[in-house]
């Protein structure tokens, strides 16, 4: 019973590609130009990696607005109303009178409801971010390239995934090189073992 559900859920899980073209660029400008050119050439499954967010890169890649704010708003609002309803129900379930206050009054319940809302909204922001950003994904083919370590330091990279049925390795390589990229090809079968440290 549960196995098919798990299997079906797994197709949504982030996973590492089988083939990857990895290109290193000298600076942010070249990265943005190459990303724009890839998009212009109709390549879909690629990403541009940089140690800090680069303005204009998302636009060049044609990334849309994130839906994360809507997720956070939805979770926050439903938590607020839900927790308020719960406290109201519990106040009636076990009525107590404190300093002559009415058994059920909405105002003293609001501070706690707001705090719980932020707890839920913060969780939604972090978990939603992870889901939308494809994290956690501890193994990715790009990690096999020692050069890729600089993506968190001062390097600029583009990775093109080979899983796209229209993936044309030679044309893509030529395009990336034309924009100043140092290209290497990574294949899942070409290397063995987990990525090494050091």
């Amino acid at each position, binding site marked *: 019973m549960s196995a098919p559900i798990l299997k079906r859920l797994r197709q949504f899980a982030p996973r590492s590609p089988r083939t990857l073209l990895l290109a290193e660029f000298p600076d942010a400008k070249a990265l943005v130009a190459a990303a724009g050119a890839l998009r212009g050439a109709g390549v879909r499954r690629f990403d541009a*990696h940089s140690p800090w967010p680069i303005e204009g890169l998302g636009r060049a890649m044609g990334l849309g607005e994130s839906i994360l704010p809507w997720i956070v708003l939805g979770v926050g609002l439903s938590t607020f109303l839900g927790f308020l309803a719960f406290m109201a129900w519990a106040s009636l379930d076990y009525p107590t009178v404190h300093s002559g206050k009415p058994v059920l009054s909405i105002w003293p319940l609001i501070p706690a409801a707001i705090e719980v809302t932020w707890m839920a909204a913060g969780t939604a922001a972090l978990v939603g971010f992870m889901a939308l950003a494809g994290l956690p994904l501890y193994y990715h083919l790009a990690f096999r390239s020692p050069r890729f370590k600089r993506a968190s330091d001062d390097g600029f990279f583009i990775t093109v995934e080979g899983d796209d049925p229209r993936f044309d390795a030679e044309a893509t390589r030529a395009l990336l090189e034309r924009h100043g990229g140092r290209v290497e090809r990574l294949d899942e079968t070409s290397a063995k073992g987990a990525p090494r440290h050091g």
Partner: protein
Amino acid sequence: MSQAAAEAYVDPSLTPGELTRSIAEPVEARPPRWWMVGAAGAASLALLFVGSVGWLFWKGVGVWGLGSPTFWGFDIINMVFWVGIAHTGTAVTSFMTLSRQPWKNGINRIAEAMTIFAVLCAALFPLIHVGRPWLAYYFFPLPNSMGIWPNFKGPIFADFFALNTYLYVSALFWYLGMLPDLAALRDRATNKIAFWAYGLLALGWRGGARQWSQYQKAYLLMAAIGTPLVLSVCAIVSMTFAPSILPGWHATIFPLYFLTGALAAGFSMLGMLAVFTRSFFGFKRLITEKHLETINKWTLACILGVAYVYLVEFFIAWYSGNLYERFTIIHNRLGGPYAAIYWTMLACNVLIPQLFWLKRFRTRQNLMVFVCLAITVGMWCERFVILVLSVHRDFLPGSWGMYAPSLVEVATFLGTIGIFLTMFLAFLKFLPVISMAEVKHSLPSSHAGSAP
């Protein structure tokens, strides 16, 4: 972010590679001797907490100096003291992110760490204050066989949620901000333990444009959640006092009172920690004198708010014409048995911080630490004044009494200072102290080529 303003806070000659090295190397190197000595001292101090709380659990709350009419003593004083210090971290990150203040980049990680450790210290006090900490789960609205629920209308219930939410959301925010830096440490790791530890925490972050765009949105949302959260936590903590009818507590200015006090306490503590970090780690190019000066300007602004609240308290006590208000706030504070503490508070919180009007005090490390230390002492006195001076002499002279902490209470407080310092030193050693990705982002060279 305006580029010119950002450049003033970072050394423009730094390259991203140098930046990674200078922040990551202290984490990777063997800890220096001062760190070992400091950590040993702080951990020993933290043991005081374990010992005194162990004794408390063994004997019961009778080992404290509490008794009629003062039932909220050192435990609540120190809780409010630590909560106050805790406020600045998330405030710095949230307010400054939303208002795009570039100076936060160098110090927000330190401020957030300070927040989390201080809230942890604060949260220990209510836990032991309830007397039977193994029953602390009664705070949670859990269904149980007795069919009872917490009093949802009580401010203590909201206070419980405020503290927990603050701790939790601050920790999430801290972690989210650290994610790209943890990936950088993972990529630089030269031994297996570091590789696995930072690797697990970094979640496989690759810095892809798709990840960055979601990340920036998530960070902004966290800041948007954090801003009202910070304001609400002060307000809710103050409301555990304000709804009671005691003179000195029953005032509508209390949320503002706690907010200004908390921010002043937090900024002055942040100033000290920033000085400590930059002088011991040699981060002088990353935490610049301009950072220190900006922190001190904020401290001064908050101190002016504190002084205003003190003034309003006196005014209302006089203007209300209420005998008890006048007695508690004017006579008992200025000339009562605890007058020394009140005058220390006024000197430390109002007089000494005025030195920050002078540029020399804002930029010279040792002068600035002196003022910050004074404010920290003053803020502690303020918590004492708020708590004890309102309850030890109430409406009926026949029920007056005095409160003095027992040795166990003092040891518990010193122990939390040890816990705070231990955690802060561990943070300095094991985590990236300055946000590499954010500082790189603000470097002038990082945008040279990108599209406008």
